[in-house]
């Protein structure tokens, strides 16, 4: 399926006493194919071999993927449950002792039961993540609602994909991250890429991206920084952080004014055109330039290229989504495709670069505060009934919707929530406004953390449960195309670690809810129940059996039954998922970032990734090669700005905002705007940039504005002098 010109039949190297286990990378949404090399004498993972037969990535991997196997047998693995008896040590690594699973389960069951008796079911919360299989994500939603009976469950996708989800739902009525398979990308004529540092965050897309230019096509990049992809772009729209919506409106205006609107498509398949046309009129190149800081000529050129291109794909990522108008930005850029009709056919469409490995699947099946499996709504009685039938509970037993990830910390602070079960996430690094979040975690009565390394967040826990890495369990993941793929087990769990689904089933038993979970003995059992629970929802996985995934090189959802091969291209019939079958062109008034620079804080701070690290860095900072390549964060500063502040390359300086401060090494580079500084977010403790970021949330997606806030720089000696005075 979808084998293209990059695909070559290549044999793998096989060493003596080794077998290769086909699987995918543990990290980003690209989910590159890889073979894990397993020593057949020790049954341990010892290395990696490219997976040339995976059609999306044909053997390619970034350095994270190449070294991912080193996670499994790493010295830092937690091998037994840990209990900390002295709560005064919370917030440190100290005081943990090894315990048996029995003791850990007993303690958790006792605490959870006592707390719920005293404060009600909703005193407990579950904070989850999407760097794990669909089966685990699905069961976590059921665990929270059925085993714990709490409304408070949410997940780290609120810091990642929730704006894309919100925007797609509004524009298309469905949230599938890409409307087309990645094997189409290199065949298009124009890529319009906004807020994606593709070369560092989704590197294995790059051979397709560059091929567009090799064929004579165009790449347009909107980014405040001259990232490796922006450096080679035909047009680099170097906008101020947080001004995307103005740029999107400005380009849409030019597309309409210059006759690039596809009237037939707009009339037959969309709503909202006239209203939007009126709204964007104001966004002339000059006005757009004033708001965004991008030269008018560049805006005109970008609009002309996108307008003229026979086929084009609009792509974006966290740069536009991690804003307090992230949903509007997504719908704003999506408007370009809807107005010009460049969607619903091969080689044209809209895609977001999913951040986490299972950022797509993990958001569809009930870890979000208001969602149930199959992308059902917990507020829709019909949907609740359908899921209750699978779960064996009655609709009145189904908890109400909860609140979003960041808002859970607010509820912890005010003691509405007193207990936390944390898994697959490290919010003590990845959440915004960390001084507040860390205080909330420290103030909890009781916290459990399930992880395979002792993360910065685990430092706040009373009990730490050892989970397995991705290579010690099996299940499905949905990659950034919306393709359901299979992760395979290459090694038995290290030490006493267990997969999350097993831990949750066993814990449910202790909590007296065994009858809802005891039939789930293997990952496959969970998979079968999960497919059934998604059946009939619009993210329908029922037909995506493990067999079919294997035979077809993955299955694109929706896939409704045995005979359905899945849906690589969305909307080929020009039918969108709103009740009237039409897409929505959205009229979106511009709003500036929540916090604009001023005299005290004249710089714009933006954050992001480097190629060597993944998310909070809990995994990648432990891998020697990756750590050596990027051992600590830095602040990128333009040479003119550095000169103004009298700062040298590599000097340590203090960066601060209204919420926090940190010391960073200066990295001088012309590849950033003069009014903007950048810091990567993968680092813990006192060097977390999220100590400084703002928790201004998008009204729809509840996504915090990681990408823009007001900051100031200062030389360390000046800061120290002030302290002395």
């Amino acid at each position: 399926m979808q084998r293209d010109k990059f695909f070559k039949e290549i044999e793998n190297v096989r060493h003596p006493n080794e077998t290769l286990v086909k699987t995918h990378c543990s990290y980003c949404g690209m989910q590159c194919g890889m073979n894990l090399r397993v020593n057949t004498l020790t049954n341990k993972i010892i290395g990696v071999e490219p997976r040339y037969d995976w059609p999306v990535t044909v053997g390619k991997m970034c350095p994270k993927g190449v070294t991912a196997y080193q996670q499994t047998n790493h010295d830092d693995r937690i091998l037994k449950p840990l209990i900390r008896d002295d709560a005064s040590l919370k917030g440190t690594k100290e005081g943990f002792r090894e315990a048996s699973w029995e003791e850990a389960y007993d303690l958790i069951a006792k605490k959870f039961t006592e707390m719920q008796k005293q404060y009600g079911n909703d005193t407990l919360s579950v904070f989850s993540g999407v760097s794990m299989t669909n089966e685990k994500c699905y069961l976590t939603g059921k665990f929270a609602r059925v085993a714990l009976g709490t409304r408070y469950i949410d997940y780290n996708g609120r810091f990642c994909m929730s704006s894309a989800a919100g925007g797609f739902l509004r524009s298309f009525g469905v949230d599938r991250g890409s409307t087309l398979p990645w094997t189409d990308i290199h065949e298009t004529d124009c890529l319009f890429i906004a807020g994606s540092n593709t070369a560092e965050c989704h590197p294995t897309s790059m051979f397709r991206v560059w091929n567009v230019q090799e064929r004579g096509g165009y790449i347009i990049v909107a980014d405040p920084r001259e990232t490796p992809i922006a450096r080679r772009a035909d047009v680099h729209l170097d906008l101020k952080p947080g001004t995307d919506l103005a740029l999107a409106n400005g380009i849409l205006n030019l597309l309409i004014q210059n006759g690039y609107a596809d009237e037939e498509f707009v009339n037959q398949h969309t709503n909202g055109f006239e209203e939007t046309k009126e709204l964007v009129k104001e966004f002339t190149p000059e006005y757009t330039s004033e708001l965004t800081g991008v030269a008018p000529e560049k805006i005109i050129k970008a609009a002309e290229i996108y307008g003229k291109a026979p086929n084009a794909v609009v792509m974006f990522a966290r740069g536009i989504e991690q804003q307090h108008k992230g949903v509007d930005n997504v719908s704003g850029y999506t408007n370009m495709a809807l107005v010009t009709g460049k969607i619903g056919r091969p080689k044209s469409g809209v895609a977001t670069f999913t951040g986490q490995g299972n950022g797509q699947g993990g958001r569809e099946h009930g870890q979000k505060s208001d969602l149930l499996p199959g992308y059902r709504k917990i507020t829709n009685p019909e949907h609740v009934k359908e899921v209750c039938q699978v779960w064996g509970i009655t609709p009145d037993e189904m908890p109400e919707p909860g609140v979003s990830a960041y808002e859970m910390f607010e509820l912890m602070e005010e003691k509405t929530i007193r207990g936390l079960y944390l898994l697959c996430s490290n919010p003590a690094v990845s959440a915004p406004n960390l001084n507040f979040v860390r205080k909330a975690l420290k103030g909890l009565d009781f916290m459990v953390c399930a992880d395979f390394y002792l993360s910065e967040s685990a430092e706040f826990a009373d009990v730490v449960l050892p989970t397995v890495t991705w290579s010690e369990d099996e299940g499905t993941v949905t990659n950034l195309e919306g393709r359901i793929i299979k992760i395979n087990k290459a090694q038995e769990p290290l030490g006493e670690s267990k997969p999350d689904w097993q831990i949750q089933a066993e814990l449910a038993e202790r909590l007296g809810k065994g009858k809802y979970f005891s039939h789930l003995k293997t990952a496959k059992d969970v998979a079968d129940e999960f497919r059934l629970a998604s059946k009939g929802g619009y993210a329908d996985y029922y037909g995506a059996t493990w067999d079919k995934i294997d035979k077809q090189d993955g299955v694109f959802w929706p896939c409704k039954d045995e005979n359905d091969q899945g849906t690589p291209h969305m909307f080929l019939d020009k039918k969108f998922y709103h009740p009237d079958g039409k897409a929505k062109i959205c009229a979106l008034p511009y709003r500036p970032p929540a916090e604009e620079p001023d005299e005290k804080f004249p710089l714009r701070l933006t954050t992001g990734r480097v190629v060597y690290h993944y998310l909070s860095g809990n995994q990648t900072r432990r891998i020697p090669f990756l750590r050596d390549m990027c051992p600590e964060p830095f602040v990128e500063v333009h040479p003119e700005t550095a000169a103004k502040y009298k700062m040298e390359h590599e000097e340590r300086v203090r960066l601060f905002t209204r919420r926090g401060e940190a010391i960073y090494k200066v990295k001088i580079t012309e590849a950033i705007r003069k009014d903007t500084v950048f810091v990567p977010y993968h680092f813990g403790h006192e060097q977390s940039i999220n100590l400084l970021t703002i928790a201004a949330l998008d009204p729809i997606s509840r996504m915090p504005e990681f990408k823009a806030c007001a900051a100031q720089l200062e030389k360390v000696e000046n800061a120290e002098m002030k302290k002395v005075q």
Partner: protein
Amino acid sequence: MTKKRLYLELENCIGCRSCLAACTQCGGHEERNRNYVYDVNPLVNRQTMPLMCLHCVNPACARSCPAQAIQIHETGAVLSALVEKCIGCQNCTIACPYGIPKFDTEQNLMYKCDLCIDRTKDGIPPMCASVCPSNTLQWLTDEEIENKKQQFNLDNGKWVTSLPYLEGETNVKVNLPGILQGVTKLF
């Protein structure tokens, strides 16, 4: 088996250093990497490029070796120093026009790119070209390389992309940055 070669398209490099990470994974590499990736002008922009052994047809490294520790494989790959022969004089590191051979002071032994001979002797691409996400490093037939050279051949006074060779004939083929200057746009 059609002969394939390592081909470099320097314009494409995104500086991810996956080639370095992957080099450690080839059998017989003792988990040490054997190539280099340079930041061309780090204070200015993000341009990077790999610096690889070009597997010279008449390699200066091997010629300079007084102990004949550097063997040339029948595929043309210029191999890493033989442990039993290398005397640690480091002549090769000086002789190579690109400074490719690395030196292990503890073992008193030179080590360099062997073109992943464990793989390439059977026509399997080397690790670096297998993983390179940007197609800076590719494993191609002579015909494919010829097509690339023609497509990207450019000498417009400003950019020269395809030189016959840099310093003498090499088994690895290179296109210098600038290839896009010669591409005809679709529209």
